[in-house]
Every structure is written in structure tokens, then in C-alpha cells.
């Protein structure tokens, strides 16, 4: 099953991908690792630098890359790439 999600890139991930926001076709359900792999296919430069230092946020909830749970995505869902935080 194919759905179109809205991917948001922040901070270093926006610099590396060259975009802040894009629509992306993904199969659903999908686990976090496969979602990340899909983003890497789109933006290979993300891999080198952020691998191991990034989490995703799906519908405003953090999801670790190695989380095995299958995510059921719907059209328009927000997926965000979250590099290490540095607020405050």
C-alpha cells in the first residue's frame, strides 16, 4: 500500500538534504529503519553524517531508527528528521 507523507528536515539534516520539506511516496505499514532507508535513498549524504545520531518523529512522536514497530502512515502524515537537539 502506497501513501504520500510530508517529510520535514531540520538543522544539519536540512543542510545535508538541501531541502526543508518534501512529499515522499512510501509503502505502509513501514518500520522506522525502512523509513530511514527510504530517506537515505532520497538523500544519500544524510547517511554518512547522521547515521547513529538521528531519530525520526512521526506525527509529532519520536521514533528511534531501530524501533521495530510497524508504522501505519496516512496521506499527509508528518515525518521529521531530528538530528541531535541543542535547544536552551
Amino acid at each position, binding site marked *: 500500500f502506497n501513501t504520500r507523507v510530508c517529510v*520535514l528536515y*531540520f*538543522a*544539519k539534516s536540512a543542510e545535508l538534504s538541501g531541502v526543508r520539506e518534501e512529499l515522499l511516496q512510501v509503502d505502509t505499514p513501514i518500520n522506522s529503519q525502512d523509513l530511514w532507508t527510504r530517506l537515505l535513498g532520497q538523500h544519500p549524504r544524510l547517511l554518512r553524517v547522521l547515521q547513529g545520531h538521528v531519530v525520526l*518523529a512521526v506525527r*509529532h512522536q*519520536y521514533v528511534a531508527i531501530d524501533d521495530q514497530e510497524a508504522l501505519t502512515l496516512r496521506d499527509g502524515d508528518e515525518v*521529521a528528521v*531530528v*538530528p*541531535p*537537539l*541543542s*535547544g*536552551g
Partner: protein
Amino acid sequence: GCVTSLPLGASKKGRDIFKLSHHRLSVEDVVAAVGSASCGAISLFIGTTREDQSESGKVIGLEYEAYEPMVQSELAELCRRLRARWPDLAHICVHHRLGWVRVGEASVVAAVSSPHRHDGQRALVCLLDGLKANVPVWKKEVYEDRKASWKENAE
């Protein structure tokens, strides 16, 4: 607009007030936001960029960005946890800068009001720990030569 004001509604015990702003933060505004006739103690924290903070050169300022709707939801969740631990807390307020912040200007002002001092002071420590650990805000240091590097919170 430049200012995102996110009043999250009142819990039984008090208000949670979050604001992301491209303008200078006002300590007075944050104090006023947590002021309460029934609360004797206001604990407040101001975080400011230090001069000569980096090894990569002289820092002239910081560039902040945030995932704004998730800042709101994460701060709300953080406040729920604080209120579960310290049920007497009255009001909680966090103002955070976005965009360009010059060295010496505050990037965050946070405050908690409480009937008793120790509750508020402890809750404020956890509020800032939680802010740094979980709230999606990023900064990069910008140096004299205009180079920049994204920072990472140690905590």
C-alpha cells in the same frame, strides 16, 4: 508572524505558557506570566550565549530553529510530568528565541511559580533538563569568519 504564542490551556493547578520568538525575550513578561496571588515563590532561569564559548573561533551569535508544533507538544508533555511530580506547581512559562541571536542576548527564559520555594526550584531544574533533552530546537554557532557549526546538548 515572527512570534508563535502557544497558550496550552489551563490545567487544574495552573497555566503552561510557551512562546517562540524572533525578538528579544523579556524577563518581565515571563515573571508576569507565572505571577500568582497564591504563590510565594517564582524560580526563574535565563540562558544566554557566552562570549568565547567555542574552540572554533569567536562566536558572534547563534541561529536557532525549531519544529514548532512539536515544541508545543513536547513542552506540554514535560509540564504534565512536572505537575505529576510536584502537584503544587502553579504556573510554568518558557520563552525561547528563534532565528538570529547575538552573543549576550538571552536564548531562553523559563520560570515556575509554586507555593513553596524548593518545589519550584527543583521543577525548574527538571524543566530545563527536559527542554534540552526532548524539545526539538536546534542552534548553530556562527563565528567571526561566518562559518558555523550545529551544536549538540550534552545533557
